[in-house]
């Protein structure tokens, strides 16, 4: 179709290319978005979705290619120009000041100089009319992640855009909050606005999107109508081959198994004004089982992981017990020596030192537990031994890499995560605590990691998985507990758990949480 006709697409992209050094993040990408459609941009993590939309919003400049807006060729040099054209964007990572109110945050992004009270009134009216109620006077620091996203959306809508780009909007929402969002999106579509919807969640794309463009390794691999596809066929387009399903044999005799990790009345004061306190958390993980902890990001999962791992030890020694012994007062090294292993959320800079070789990163978490093997007399590191052990892990976990012992930063996210998980599995830990095991990991590697976690549990270890990915938790857990505002619900056995029940808990619906409850109607 010609870009100059009256029925031209709102947005048309041809041959857009962006390279970072030797990496081609977007490779001759074509995309068209018609007026009044919800268009999905599908792809795995690292497929180039975010790079593409950053070029559309003017925060990245393409190396080559053309962008047409209403049939007219444009060069989008900065976000201000994109906004002027009528493109609005809601980022995956919010850019809000926690110490300011919602209205002040909105005022900062609209540089029209109108008084805050006017903006607040407009924002309130707009938010109610779109079913996303928002109190403009509330401090961002006090709001839930879902409410913060509303600020971003309202701020975007106040600029009356023609095209709204949403980057993974439901990754921070409960299923019920997501339903609310979908209603709003459909409302916007009925008003003739277009939406570019970025996601890797197939079910929601099938549910609300009219057309989809699928990206893989920076290239467009197909355009389709998601309603006519199955989740499996979409997954195949995204990943390039079939992903093996994770196999989970039901756990046997868990009720009588030995508790290996016990958390008793764990509380923690907030470390900073905007971090979440932990409130009286109780949990038992027994030998042989996988317990999942669900929850919207920022409800205390990070604080919980630090407390369980011993990166921040507790006052009360009995608040964390490993293999029947008090561990609350011990450091992370002390807890490792009792048989526990930990995998944090951030890979680079927390789970691994980016500029160090894999063999050195092996030493990072195992210098004490395998002291005799890896460290010789007088504190000399046995470099042959750590090299051999690193190679063993690389082989066992199928870590793909370009050199025999590369720096951690040189690996892709999935491969580095496989190495970090493998580093801990290699010890055969009796307690394993993992935060976001497959965040940003490609589907093949994610399935591999999930399978190994299940196998570790079935071989007699206790596995605790903290994740925002509900599909993942349903796949691997024997029971799921939900963390909301620093409190942990009772674990729900997997046979009783449904998305709806877990979603309600994620919104804070458990009795006693009423005062923090979100609108879940």
């Amino acid at each position, binding site marked *: 179709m010609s870009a100059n006709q009256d029925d031209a697409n709102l947005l048309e992209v041809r041959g857009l290319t962006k390279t*970072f050094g030797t*990496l081609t993040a977007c490779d001759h990408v074509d995309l068209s978005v018609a007026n009044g459609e919800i268009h999905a941009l599908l792809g795995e993590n690292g497929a180039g979705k975010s790079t593409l939309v950053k070029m559309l919003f003017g925060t*990245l400049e393409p190396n080559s290619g053309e962008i047409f807006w209403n049939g007219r060729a444009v060069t989008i040099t900065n976000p201000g120009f994109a906004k002027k054209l009528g493109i609005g964007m809601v980022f995956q990572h919010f850019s809000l000041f926690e110490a300011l109110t919602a209205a002040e945050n909105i005022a900062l992004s609209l540089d029209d100089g109108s008084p805050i009270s006017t903006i607040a009134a407009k924002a309130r009216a707009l938010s109610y009319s779109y079913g996303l109620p928002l109190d403009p006077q509330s401090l961002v620091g006090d709001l839930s992640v879902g409410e913060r996203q509303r600020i971003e959306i309202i701020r975007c809508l106040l600029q009356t855009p023609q095209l709204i780009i949403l980057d993974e909007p439901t990754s921070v929402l409960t299923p019920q909050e997501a339903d609310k969002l979908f209603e709003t999106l459909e409302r916007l579509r009925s008003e003739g606005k277009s939406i570019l919807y970025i996601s890797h969640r197939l079910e929601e794309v099938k549910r609300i999107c009219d057309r989809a463009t699928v990206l893989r390794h920076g290239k467009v691999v197909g355009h389709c109508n998601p309603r006519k596809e199955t989740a499996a066929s979409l997954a195949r387009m995204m990943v390039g081959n079939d992903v093996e399903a994770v196999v989970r044999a039901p756990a046997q005799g868990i009720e009588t198994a030995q508790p290996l990790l016990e958390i008793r009345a764990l509380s923690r004061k907030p470390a900073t004004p905007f971090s979440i306190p932990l409130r009286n958390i109780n949990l038992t993980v027994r030998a042989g089982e996988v317990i999942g902890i669900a929850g919207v990001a920022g409800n205390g999962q990070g604080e919980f992981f630090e407390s369980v791992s011993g990166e921040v030890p507790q006052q009360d020694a009995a608040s964390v017990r490993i293999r029947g012994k008090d561990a609350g007062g011990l*450091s*992370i090294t002390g807890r490792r020596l009792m048989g526990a292993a930990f995998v944090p959320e951030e890979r680079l*800079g927390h789970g691994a030192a980016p*500029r160090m070789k894999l063999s050195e990163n092996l030493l990072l978490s195992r210098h004490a537990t395998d002291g005799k093997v890896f460290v010789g007399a007088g504190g000399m590191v046995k470099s042959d031994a750590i090299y051999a052990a690193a190679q063993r892990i690389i082989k066992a976990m199928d870590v793909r890499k370009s050199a025999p012992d590369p720096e951690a930063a040189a690996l892709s996210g999935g491969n580095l995560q496989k190495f970090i998980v493998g580093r801990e599995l290699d010890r055969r830990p009796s307690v394993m605590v993992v935060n976001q095991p497959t965040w940003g990991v490609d589907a093949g590697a994610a399935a591999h990691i999930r399978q190994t976690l299940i196998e570790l549990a079935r071989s007699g270890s206790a596995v605790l998985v903290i994740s925002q990915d509900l599909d993942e938790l349903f796949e691997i857990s024997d029971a799921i507990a939900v963390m909301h505002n620093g409190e942990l619900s009772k674990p729900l056995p997997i046979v009783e758990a449904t998305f709806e029940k877990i979603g309600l808990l994620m919104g804070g619906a458990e009795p006693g949480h009423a005062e923090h409850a979100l609108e879940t109607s």
Partner: protein
Amino acid sequence: MMRLELVKRPQRSMLFSALSPFIAFVLTIIAGAILFALLGVNPVKAFQIYFLEPVSQVWQLHELAIKAAPLILIGVGLSVCYRANIWNIGAEGQFILGGIVGSSIPVLFPQFEGPLVLPLMLLFGMVGGAAYAAIPALLKARFNTNEILTSLMLVYVAQLFLDWLVRGPWRDPKGFNFPQTIQFNDSAILPELMPASGRANWGFVFALVAAVLVWILMSRMLKGFEVRVLGSSPRAGRFAGFGINRMVFFAFMLSGALAGLAGISEVSGAIGQLQPVISPGYGFAAIIVAFLGRLNPLGIVAAGLVLALTYLGGEAVQSALGISDKVARVFQGMLLFFVLGCDTLIHYRIRLIGLATPTLEAAPKLEEAR
């Protein structure tokens, strides 16, 4: 309108990383030539006097070793701090305290002689330097103060303390009111290595041994790994179970001990008594040595010799050409400037970006690598 932007390079060039100190040295020479020309001196002749004449005879090489020894000792210690991302700028003060505490034995007990005196003095010197370095370490660990400021300010405290000592309680009563202590007795003097050919003393050997030991520590031992992890990714270090506060004390006290050893070696070797000024800024010049040596103990040995030459050259041009010996400071400053500049350009490249006409090739912002 144009603006400059630093763009991170995808890969660091190994070749240029290794060459960077040499490139910096060449750039310093070029800038120095311009400087000499502006002063109305023939640059070729000036460089001959500055860099070649001070090392043309054997006794002069001894002088070079005397100047290089403290620079290397201090630089090696500082390299551990800087690798741990801990910014000890106060080696000059730790050097002085090492000199004072080590000298306390010959000054307060002039009758005490024998083979034990010297080892005890050296030990006292190291303890003095380490203890003085523990002050900024404690302030950082306990109150989270900025160690750059505290360690730097303690330099002036140390300088004034030494000044007070040699003018007051420790002044030589038979010294005609000169501000200096008594001459140390013979067993408190650090022996010369080869008295037949020059004055160089055992301090240079200490420096070489310290460089090799610290190199082994940093590249082969778990403690060195701990230093590197905490320096490059502190959160990963905490995950590894390494304590950041323990590291602050370790790095400060190790570098303080080496600076203290350098101080007492200088006092008992090259000077033979305490006087108001015992260092021509070794503690600060050693910062340049540490970076010029790429924070690698073996590289620091070479860098220490280069910096020692700038001191000797400064004295040489003063006597031969009548140029202020402050020119040595200028050369040291230029050297550090060019080393840091080269290092920056190895990690980043400069992009010129016109604001009026944005082009498609314009650079990404640093954080947006996908």
